């Protein structure tokens, strides 16, 4: 049983959906938010419609709503993950240059991305594992990471084999440098500060020592 497995056995790690819900709680009404493909997209499910948060999709959709009922699908309306979505009243469309002008221009309040690694200097690696077997594919990740003033990462705390995803320096190819502001994992919520990672809260049953034992980069309480 590796260190990670021991730690996980001693507490109740969150599921992906629980992390998404935890993150969603921290998004106030009125924010403009881009959710990266994969797990981050689930965050939208936990923001109640009466709390108006405006979701943007890189493919030119501002004011995205939930998935449509099968009988109401608009086949020209998808999100960045190429899933059918809806448009909320007040939503609008724009072309790709305008969409990324919005992203690069820093107009979003928040972007949530998944990641392979986040480093204590705020670097993020989320687009490539240097696996030369498949072609590189960056999509909009670098634009979102470099452009959004507030980048939160949603990811498992460790890899399946127990390696820390919060690292001193990323070993995978970088997506952007010094941009991550907060990390939501299945074990904790961790802020990025000028002094590195600072733990905001942990799942019940977890101690800072136990969390540190599965984390490569040094941690302190916020």
């Amino acid at each position, binding site marked *: 049983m590796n260190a990670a497995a021991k730690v996980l056995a001693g507490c109740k790690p969150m599921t992906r959906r629980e992390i998404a819900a935890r993150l969603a709680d921290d998004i106030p009404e009125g924010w403009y938010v881009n959710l990266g493909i994969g797990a981050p997209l689930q965050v939208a499910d936990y923001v109640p419609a009466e709390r108006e948060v405006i979701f943007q999709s890189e493919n*030119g959709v501002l004011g995205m709503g939930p998935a449509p009922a099968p009988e109401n699908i608009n*086949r020209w309306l998808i999100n960045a993950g190429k899933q059918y979505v809806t448009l909320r009243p007040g939503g609008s*469309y724009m072309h790709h240059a305008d969409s990324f002008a919005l992203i690069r221009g820093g107009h979003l309040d928040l972007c949530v991305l998944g990641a392979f690694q986040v480093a204590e200097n705020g670097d993020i690696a989320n687009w490539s594992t240097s696996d030369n077997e498949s072609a590189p594919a960056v*999509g*909009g990740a*670098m*634009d979102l990471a470099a452009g959004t003033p507030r980048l939160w990462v949603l990811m498992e705390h460790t890899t399946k084999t127990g390696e820390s995803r919060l690292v001193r320096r990323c070993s995978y190819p970088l997506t*952007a*440098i010094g941009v991550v502001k907060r990390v939501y994992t299945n074990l904790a919520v961790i802020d990025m500060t000028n002094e590195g990672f600072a733990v905001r809260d942990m799942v019940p049953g977890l101690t800072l020592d136990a969390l540190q034992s599965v984390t490569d980069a040094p941690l302190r309480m916020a």
Partner: protein
Amino acid sequence: MINKIVKDMAEAMAGIRDGSVVLIGGFGSIGQPNVLIGGLIEQGAKDLTVVANNSGVGHVGLAALLETGRVRKIICSFPRTADPVVFEKLWREGRIELECVPQGTMAERMRAAGAGIPAFFTPTAVGTKLAAGKEEREINGRRYILEEALPGDVALVEAWEADRWGNLTYKSSARNFNPVMAAAAKLTIVQTQHIVELGTLDAEKVVTPGIYVNRVLHVPYGEPTVT
């Protein structure tokens, strides 16, 4: 009388040369002009450079074009949609060159081409391997890299409505790269779901004005499949 509506695919594809840079609209298959891509396959131009956000799915549309072996290079942000079987095989066999570009940089490089801007600084990709070999500069305390315009010889565009002047509207998120590419190419060819009378499009709602369009082919082919 200006009339950009062409009568058939042969007229739409006339004159596309070997070696052309071809911009192909769409995000996945939404807004992708698959019928025009079929026409380009038929037309036979080779040694092409294709610019498209994705690299094709299964064996249809863009994937079918790649499968002909006539695409020398693809410039693309995400060559990994659902079923990129054709592209992956070509790429592993070294039979196609890939330039992987961040999606927003790709869009802005084409916007710049259409706007007469030869190069611009951007924060995207700074400090990453996609910035390798690019000029870097610090401006007001932040690091940026220089990116160049990406013009096309030909753009293949899918529209929702078009009139005989070539004014275009798009439907929902099928807008995506289409208006940007229409403005970035020397020869812009459009497939449109609907042809409307001149003057019936709302002047406040035209997304691509006809100045960016050369040929319009009426292709009322129905709904896209998401892939």
